[in-house]
């Protein structure tokens, strides 16, 4: 079955080509059928492969398609890795991706035919790139996908290219990603010079004999790439701005593709990270600080999508915390559950925005519960899942991460738990302000409020089911014996790392219960508080002051970046333009011209037209040569 793996990325590629090339000819319904159908086909193939892979004792396979780069000793084949990890990601990408495509077909209906097709073409290309990233059996193929998702995010964030702000957001995303990509690229080159190969199999098997400093360098550079792609401090600011794109695109970026790439890459390279403890600490600390930092910003945002965006940054921070403390399964688990509930929340937000006629400010919403019943229920389930209430999916994955963090360093746990409380708070602030209380929008908006069409509600319902039940594949040992299916499933991938990690400090059951349900109880209190407080929210015009103002302005990070990086860079560019370019470069170019003009003007006097002077010069020159010849030899 795994021989058919090439079909999985092939379908979206074909979809991209058809929709992209035929964008002027195809009708809207045909475009959406091709676009969604391609992903559905990939999903079906992925499921078939998954059924094969999930058999116990399945050994990872590398499906060689063709030689890609073959120069002397370096051989980089175009090959796909079919194992438990990549197959799981395939399911997430194509499954959630398909639901988002389906949703998009209704959400984007107002667009003109040509742009509608362009949208689906980009979406398919996005999924294709992500599949390439996940399937590649070496870092170079992974890098192709890595760059591909960067490109597609640029195209989709700037989808409404007539708005200059959106274009700037797209550029920001692209540039930030490029910074990270440079790190990734350097790591690949380093690997190539160190191991002479970039194949996962080769690199991982040789990793053990490498000195720790080299491994630390490689993994840190790889992590810089992950920082850019997965929006970690300090390269996270592009992700909230990426909200400029259509809402389903946000869902796609945040749930199925793009931001999980960094997590996948680190999880894939788990053995390298396990062997370099310093990098692991860096990853954990950066993940944790991102988690808590983004959560504080989310507390005070008023744009429905911005809240979700910062919550994604925060959740990605948790995933990196898990990777940093060596809980690779936990990270992948959280990627999965997060894909379900974050896609659900974004699509729910899209449904709200659709109903509110492109209003995104939650201060102008409220009381939407009775107008959008399905959206309301599913959104609430998504909020409960992300907040980590048992038995919703987020509870299990987050608990696994926090437990692993506690084992590693109790401080991680405390900070992480505070972040989890904030998550619950801002999610229910968002929920209460959107769906509870009284409607605060204009009359016209209230008149137009309506539940979204079924193409939008069906994905919501499916995702809600997954968001509720998705966590049940990873119920911790302590609650139910042998029920952590995911851990058993992924065990072969993380085998070497688990083997190396110290296993001695197992928590006692009572501590584990305390960690698990203690936090859950506090979270419930926080939810209760936020629910009550923001259900009664009324519009005020009072400006925020103090810390609230700082949070509302996202800690002024954009402004700081602007002042510390952009402005000096601009100033230097201006300096170079005015001094180096205009004086030196132009001076040299114009100087050459002027020199030739000047010298030719001087030489012109020789061409007098007087035969006598020509002969005089000739005779003089002959005499001079004669003298030179004569005296040269005598010397």
């Amino acid at each position, binding site marked *: 079955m795994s021989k058919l793996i090439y079909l999985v990325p092939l379908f979206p590629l074909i979809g991209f080509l058809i929709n992209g090339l035929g964008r002027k000819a195809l009708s809207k319904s045909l475009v959406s059928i091709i676009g969604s159908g391609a992903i559905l086909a990939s999903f079906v193939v992925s499921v078939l492969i998954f059924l094969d892979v999930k058999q116990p004792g399945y050994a990872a396979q590398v499906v060689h398609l063709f030689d890609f780069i073959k120069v002397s000793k370096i051989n980089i084949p175009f090959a796909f890795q079919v194992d438990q990890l990549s197959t799981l990601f395939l399911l997430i990408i194509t499954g959630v991706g398909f639901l988002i495509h389906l949703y998009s077909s209704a959400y984007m209906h107002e667009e003109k035919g040509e742009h509608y097709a362009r949208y689906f073409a980009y979406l398919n290309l996005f999924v294709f790139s992500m599949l390439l990233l996940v399937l590649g059996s070496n870092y170079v193929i992974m890098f192709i996908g890595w760059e591909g998702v960067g490109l597609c995010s640029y195209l989709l964030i700037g989808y409404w290219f007539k708005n200059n702000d959106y274009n700037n957001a797209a550029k920001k995303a692209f540039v930030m990603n490029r910074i990270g990509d440079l790190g990734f690229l350097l790591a690949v080159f380093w690997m190539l010079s160190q191991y002479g190969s970039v194949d996962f199999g080769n690199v991982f098997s040789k990793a053990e004999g490498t000195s720790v400093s080299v491994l630390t360098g490689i993994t840190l550079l790889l992590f810089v790439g992950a920082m850019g792609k997965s929006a970690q401090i300090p390269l996270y600011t592009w992700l909230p701005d990426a909200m400029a794109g259509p809402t389903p695109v946000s869902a796609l970026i945040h749930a199925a593709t793009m931001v999980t790439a960094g997590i996948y890459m680190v999880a894939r390279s788990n053995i390298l990270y396990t062997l370099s403890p310093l990098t692991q600490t860096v990853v954990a600390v950066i993940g944790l600080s991102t988690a808590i930092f983004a959560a504080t910003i989310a507390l005070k945002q008023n744009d429905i999508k911005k809240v979700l965006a910062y919550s994604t940054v925060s959740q990605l921070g948790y995933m990196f915390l898990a990777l940093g403390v060596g809980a690779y399964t936990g990270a992948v688990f959280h990627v999965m559950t997060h894909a379900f509930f974050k896609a659900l929340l974004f699509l729910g937000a899209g449904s709200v925005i659709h109903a509110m006629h492109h209003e995104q400010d939650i201060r102008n919403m409220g009381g939407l519960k009775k107008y959008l019943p399905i959206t309301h229920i599913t959104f609430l389930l998504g909020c409960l899942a992300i907040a980590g209430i048992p038995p919703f999916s987020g509870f299990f994955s987050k608990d696994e991460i926090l437990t692993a963090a506690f084992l590693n360093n109790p401080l991680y746990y405390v900070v992480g738990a505070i972040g989890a409380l904030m998550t619950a708070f801002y999610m229910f602030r968002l929920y209460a302000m959107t769906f509870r209380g009284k409607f605060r929008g204009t009359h016209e908006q209230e008149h137009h409020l309506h539940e979204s069409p079924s193409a939008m509600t069906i994905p919501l319902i499916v995702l809600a089911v997954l968001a509720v039940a998705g966590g049940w594949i990873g119920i911790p040992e302590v609650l139910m014996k042998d029920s952590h299916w995911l851990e058993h499933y992924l065990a072969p991938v993380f085998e070497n790392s688990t083997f190396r990690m110290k296993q001695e400090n197992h928590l006692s059951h009572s501590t584990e219960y305390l960690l698990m349900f203690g936090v859950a109880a506090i979270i419930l209190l926080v939810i209760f508080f936020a629910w009550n407080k923001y259900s009664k929210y009324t519009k005020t015009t009072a400006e925020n002051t103090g810390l609230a103002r700082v949070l509302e302005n996202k800690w002024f990070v954009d402004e700081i970046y602007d002042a510390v990086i952009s402005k000096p860079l601009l100033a230097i560019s201006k300096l170079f333009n005015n001094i180096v370019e205009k004086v030196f470069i132009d001076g040299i170019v114009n100087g050459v011209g002027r020199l030739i003009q000047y010298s030719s003007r001087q030489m012109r006097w020789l061409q007098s*037209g007087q035969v006598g002077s020509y002969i005089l010069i000739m005779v003089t020159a002959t005499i001079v040569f004669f003298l030179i010849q004569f005296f040269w030899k005598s010397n």
Partner: protein
Amino acid sequence: MPINYYLFLSIALFSIGIVGVLTRRNAIIIFMCVELMLNAVNVLLIAFSKMHHLKALTANAATTVGTEAQLFVFFIMVVAAAEVTVGLAIIVMMYRNIHSVDINFLNRLKH
């Protein structure tokens, strides 16, 4: 007679020719100076040839070594004669056209 005298005579003739070509504006005078330079070379050729031939005669009384240069002189004279016919014809044409033999009037190609 020592070879030096011939050399000095030749150099003197040649220099007079050159100075004449450079300084005079009359085309006929310039022409004469060119002839002077050619003949300076002829004198030199004959002087060297004679010297060379005398040296060879001491070894072999019947030899003709060294006489080739004297033949060259004839060639030069023939060429010079041909040149004179063409050159004088040009000068005549020039005089017919511009009523002067001053070469400084002949710089129209410059403009």
